[in-house]
């Protein structure tokens, strides 16, 4: 028999897991006792699946039983905590999470009422939320006055030496540093090497107690396979997946890859679905992510093809395999992503596909992680000159910078302390503080660190010694023996790297058939179309239908051929592209069916697009009527950096002359699509002049790499 505290804690654990015999894992009870009985902050470094949530939910409940205030948990991984919250509820813990995707404004009201009435034991929020004025004012305020325990998940982000950089943790670190001792603190992470732990100690004070467990690895079988290029990897996946037992995860670096891989596997009769952070919104199906997770948990899917949005907190003890379609950014990320495979299985596969140009994508992530000096200087200069500050929209107009970049830069700068700028009532204002030169020092250091991590990842791919040992050492577990299970220890591949050549041919064809939707623009940018007088919502009667683009600029599929057509001396798109678009339109089958073809006019290359559109029309046996005219030369759209500039650049540029067939549905052809404003404007003019529905068609999308 233990102390009354231990007994009560065990009782709560048993209620929560629904097992009257359950006992704590090593370290869990010690952590709970520390939080209840000692005041010093605690850092728990324990592998995924160890059961951190048991610690903080039970500690929260015990504190409530001692009349303390509620617990606040700050975690970027809330979306995946459903199961843990349900388990806590069985032990009588009333936990509420506020995430942007799932909590609508009605829920806010209800949650706020519960908070005010002290009916909430645990409030879970994302780090970003703490920076949101409205959330802090309306939701956090009622509990902030009584918080008894503060839990910070993914605590390695507090350190600049961690493998993740999350800007919002800058704020969290400062909040932790100015906490009076009356608030208990628990910081948790699954992965922190010695350097990160030492850094956390210096950031959070010498009184920080550290509890550190061993890494998980018992059933993992690691193997790396060099397969240069998309075609071979797709072929290998289609060949190998049906032979693997159970269900698993395929990680890709970008959303586009997740979609492509899932579609390819589907075509090969494999039950795979794409999964990424914004899936619910983009698919228009609320709760889709959750449903996909559930199907994977029940082994109803062979695989989820996911970006890192499917992250920690996703707990599936019988996950049979984790395959990486590309090299992740660091060995620690890799360890974390494979570390959740097969905890309850005797064998689980962790396969890394690599070789070829994977680094391009991680390079891009590294390069865009921080704003350029030039952008920062321009932002500060603009704000210096504006005595009452500027809104994001005003800055965008003045700077001709992409909204995403601008937003990102403003956020990073506002998280400095002292910050050179801050947001007051939706206006960005300069503060009295200069931007500390240390900011750029940090940027350089972090960029260097990311590059070193990338190099280590490549070294792992080609490692000639035990792969598990390599991973363990990277996390400062230096006494790990060779695992005896990985492909290197065994001296032979666990899974063959081969596939039938016909499969590769089919994969190549598949890539050429991968079309992408062109979505209609929904809102005219403010003041961008003073000549056309387009304002507010793009009305249904003027809007384009959803269109199709054949390829991504420069991609392995048709992208190269499009590039060749555009920049060759002949200035003519290959006939194969005509055939490909015909095939695309046939598959797409737009309704109501287009009855004629027109194209976006150009003054620079007067014939390139029109000539192609004419050939396309003939191949589709439709009439071609070039009814749009460009009346004024403009700088190229690709030089326009944000939505306002892209749109404004087109104001008053086109005119329409209606003719035969005009009132029937039409295919509107252009070679490139970037922001989609050219299509939006041309379509609106066509519709205004009385045309039928407008279906945009483009050869290539000049998109930036989309983020995960």
């Amino acid at each position, binding site marked *: 028999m233990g102390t009354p505290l231990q007994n009560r804690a065990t009782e709560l654990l048993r209620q929560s897991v629904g097992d009257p015999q359950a006992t704590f894992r090593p370290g869990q009870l010690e952590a709970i006792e520390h939080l209840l009985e000692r005041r010093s902050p605690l850092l728990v470094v324990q592998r995924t699946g160890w059961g951190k949530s048991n610690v903080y939910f039970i500690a929260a409940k015990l504190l409530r039983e001692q009349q303390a205030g509620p617990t606040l948990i700050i975690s970027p991984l809330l979306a995946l905590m459903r199961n843990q919250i349900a388990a806590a509820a069985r032990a009588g813990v009333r936990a509420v999470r506020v995430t942007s995707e799932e909590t609508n404004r009605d829920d806010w009201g209800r949650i706020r009422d519960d908070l005010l009435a002290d009916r909430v034991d645990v409030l879970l929020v994302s780090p970003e939320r703490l920076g949101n004025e409205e959330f802090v004012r309306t939701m956090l305020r009622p509990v902030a006055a009584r918080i008894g325990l503060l839990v910070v998940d993914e605590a390695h982000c507090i350190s600049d030496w961690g493998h993740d950089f999350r800007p919002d943790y800058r704020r969290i670190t400062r909040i932790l540093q100015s906490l*009076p001792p009356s*608030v208990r603190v628990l910081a948790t992470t699954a992965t922190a090497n010695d350097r990160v732990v030492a850094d956390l100690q210096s950031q959070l004070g010498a009184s920080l107690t550290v509890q550190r467990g061993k890494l998980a690895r018992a059933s993992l079988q690691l193997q790396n396979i060099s397969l240069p290029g998309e075609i071979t990897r797709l072929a290998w996946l289609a060949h190998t997946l049906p032979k693997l037992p159970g269900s698993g995860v395929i990680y890709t670096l970008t959303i586009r890859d997740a979609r492509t891989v899932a579609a390819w596997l589907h075509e090969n009769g494999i039950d795979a679905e794409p999964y990424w952070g914004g899936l619910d919104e983009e698919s228009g199906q609320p709760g889709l992510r959750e449903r996909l997770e559930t199907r994977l948990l029940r082994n109803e899917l062979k695989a989820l093809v996911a970006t890192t949005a499917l992250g920690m907190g996703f707990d599936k003890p019988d996950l049979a395999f984790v395959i990486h379609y590309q090299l992740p950014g660091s060995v620690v990320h890799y360890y974390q992503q494979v570390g959740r495979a097969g905890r309850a299985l005797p064998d689980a596969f962790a396969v890394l596909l690599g070789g070829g140009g994977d680094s391009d994508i991680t390079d891009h992530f590294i390069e865009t992680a921080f704003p350029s000096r030039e952008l920062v200087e321009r932002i500060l200069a603009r704000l210096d000159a504006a005595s009452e500050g500027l809104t994001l929209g005003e800055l965008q107009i003045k700077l001709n910078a992409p909204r995403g970049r601008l937003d990102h830069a403003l956020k990073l700068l506002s998280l400095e302390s002292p910050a050179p700028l801050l947001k007051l009532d939706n206006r960005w204002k300069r503060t009295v503080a200069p931007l500390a030169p240390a900011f750029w020092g940090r940027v350089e250091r972090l960029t260097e660190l990311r590059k070193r991590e990338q190099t280590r990842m490549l070294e792992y791919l080609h490692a000639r010694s035990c792969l598990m040992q390599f991973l363990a050492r990277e996390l400062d577990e230096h006494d790990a023996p060779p695992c005896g299970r990985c492909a290197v220890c065994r001296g032979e591949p666990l899974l063959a790297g081969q596939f039938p050549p016909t499969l590769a041919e089919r994969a190549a064809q598949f890539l050429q058939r991968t079309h992408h939707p062109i979505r209609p623009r929904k809102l005219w940018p403010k003041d961008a179309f003073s000549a056309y007088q387009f304002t507010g919502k793009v009305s249904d009667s003027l809007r384009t239908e959803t269109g199709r683009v054949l390829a991504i600029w420069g991609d392995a599929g048709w992208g190269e051929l499009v590039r060749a057509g555009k920049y060759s001396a002949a200035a003519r798109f290959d006939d194969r592209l005509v055939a490909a678009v015909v095939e695309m339109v046939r598959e797409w089958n737009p309704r109501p069916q287009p009855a004629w073809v027109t194209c976006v006019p150009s003054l620079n290359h007067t014939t390139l697009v029109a000539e192609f559109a004419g050939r396309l029309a003939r191949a589709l046996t439709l009439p071609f009527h070039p009814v749009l005219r460009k009346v004024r030369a403009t700088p190229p759209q690709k030089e326009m950096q944000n939505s306002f500039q892209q749109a404004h650049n087109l104001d008053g540029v086109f005119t329409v002359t209606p003719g035969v067939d005009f009132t029937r549905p039409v295919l509107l052809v252009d070679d490139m699509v970037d922001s989609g404003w050219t299509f939006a404007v041309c379509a609106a003019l066509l519709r205004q002049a009385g045309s039928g529905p407008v279906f945009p068609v483009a050869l290539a999308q000049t998109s930036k790499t989309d983020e995960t």
Partner: protein
Amino acid sequence: MSANPLSPATQATLLLCSPLRAGRNKDVQPLSIGEFNELEKQLQRAGAGLEQLLEADTAPLLKKFPAAVDAEQVTALLGRGFMLSMAVETWQSAGVWVASRNESDYPERLLRLKQNAPPLIYGCGGKKLLSRGGLAIVGSRDVDAAGEEFTRRAAASAAREEMQVVSGGARGVDQLAMLAALEAGGTVVGVLADSLLRSATSGTAREAIQDGRLTLVSAFDPEAGFNVGNAMQRNKHIYALADFGLVVSSGYNEGGTWSGAIEQLEKLRLTPIFVRADDDVPEGNRQLLRRGALRFPSEPWPAALREMFAAADQKNPPPMETADLFALHEKPPEYRGGRR
């Protein structure tokens, strides 16, 4: 935790006396100055300091205190630790500092207010200016054109003679005085009754603060909105941070300028009060002269304003211990008392 930017006593004072970001709480009322003074007195009697209030269990300590200290309210206020750290983080990031009455970085001149010294002072800009004293120029918002011109000239003259201008940041006389002094190359202390955060980020103020020529302070939450009571309190702080007061225009028996000046003349007596006394000054100015204020000479002024002050000051013996008029830029030794 060791990295904490605030001392334990300042943390405790903030927990007790600050709304911790104004304008958004209906929960628990912070202590008034009077209540805070009482609590400090009781702590002293119990041989304890404010920092003890941060310890895990304050109940035994609070139980010892008489009913004048509301233990329940104090406990609730002290429980706001997380709120405190959120607020401190916000202020720090915006370049706003905070000092509490029991710490060495608290402006010494404010301690002249003794029990009326605000428990907390927030600020933006260098603290050095707060010990430089200078000329407080005050007046009502609706000053006439002659008053406006007078304000500008007086502030600019002071600035040229390296006398700092202290003022309240309100529209009218306050802002005119501050702007004129800055334009003439002088230093200025702005003592605000509200919206420190907003004022510190507006164009003119921001540049002057960056140059080290302006410091804004306020005894009220950096996000507090306008409140008559706070504006009245603020008048004390203006005079306490200056060596001389100059009233440009005052209502009679009404308005903050009047009551602030009367309070100085008849109660606090921290600084000699001069009044603009030309022919067509408001009734309030004339009445202040009858209540003991000093006549500010008519223009043209003598070459050195400082000597003029000294002269006027000698002709009209001040009602309290004199400042050393030839050491305006040093802390007058008489003012150093008052620290607990």
